[in-house]
C-alpha cells in the first residue's frame, strides 16, 4: 500500500468501517511509515476535539423570544377551528 492509498481509505479506517480484507495492509503500512501514523493520530484527535467542543451559547433574550413565538403559534394551531370533521 502507498501513502496515497492509505489517505484515500482514512475515513473508513478512523470510522471503523474499513473492509477487513484491506485493514491488515493499512495497518502494516502504518507500522512502517511514521508520517502516516502521525496523520492518522492527528485526524482522530481533530475529530475528538470537535466532537467534545462546546456549542455556542444561546442568547438569553432570543431564547425567551423563541419560546414566546412557539407558544403563540401552538395556541393558534390548537385552537383553530378544525376544517375537516
Amino acid at each position, binding site marked *: 500500500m502507498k501513502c496515497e492509498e492509505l489517505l484515500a481509505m482514512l475515513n473508513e479506517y478512523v470510522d471503523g468501517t474499513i473492509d477487513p480484507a484491506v485493514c491488515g495492509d493499512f495497518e502494516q503500512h502504518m507500522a512502517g511509515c511514521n*508520517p502516516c501514523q502521525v496523520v492518522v493520530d*492527528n485526524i482522530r484527535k481533530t475529530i475528538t476535539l470537535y466532537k467534545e467542543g462546546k456549542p455556542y451559547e444561546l442568547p438569553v433574550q432570543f431564547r425567551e423570544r423563541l419560546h414566546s413565538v412557539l407558544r403563540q403559534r*401552538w395556541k393558534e394551531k390548537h385552537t383553530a377551528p378544525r376544517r375537516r370533521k
Partner: protein
Amino acid sequence: MTNPQSPRAAEITDVELVNRAKAGELDAFETLTTRYEQRVFSLAMRMLRQEQDAEDVTQQTFLSALENLNGFRGEASFATWLFRIATHAALKVIRKYKGLKTVSLEEATEGTGQVDSIPHPEYIADWRQSPEQLVQKREIQRLLDEALAKLDEKHRLVFLLRDVEGLSVKETAEALGLSEANIKVRLLRARLQLRELLTRTLGDPAKQVIQKHDHAH
C-alpha cells in the same frame, strides 16, 4: 404543569415527548425545544457565522417542527430530523446571499475521489497535548471555530453534520441532498484540511515528522 427545565424532564425520552406533543401537550414540545435549541443554534452559527441569521434559522426550525410534528414518523431520531430541517433553512439563507451566482451543492461536485485529488498532508507533527487536555482550555474553541470558518462551505457543512452533530453518512447525504459518495469525499477533504490547520497550532515542532514523499512506499 411540568417545568420544561425541571430535572424530571431530563428523564423523559424524546420519543415519549414527541408522542405527548402530538397529543397536544405544549409542555412536551417546549421540553424538546429546550433540549435541542442550543445545538440547533450552534449548528446554524457554525454554518452561517452570523448571529441574526442563526437566530432566524433556529426559530424557523422549531416553528417548522411544530407545524410538521405529525409528519415525524420516527424513522430517524428527533435530533436528526431537527438538524435536517435546520440544514434546509440554513441552505436557503446561504443561497439567498449567493444570489444568482449560486451553484447548487450538488453541482459543485468534488473531484472523483481519485487518489491523486486528495490534498497531501504538509505539516505533520504529534500534538503537544491530548484532546482531553485541550478542551479544557478557553481559547481552544476559538481556534476550532476559526479553522472551521476557513473551510469551503461544501466541506464545512458536511463536517458539521457528520463529525460535530454525529449524523451518519447516509443522514448527512439526505440532509444536504447529495450522494453518499460525494459526502465521503467532502468529509475526507474537510478532515484533512482541519488536521492541517489545527496541527500548525497544536503540533509540537520538536516532534515534526519530515515526510519523505517519494511515493515509494
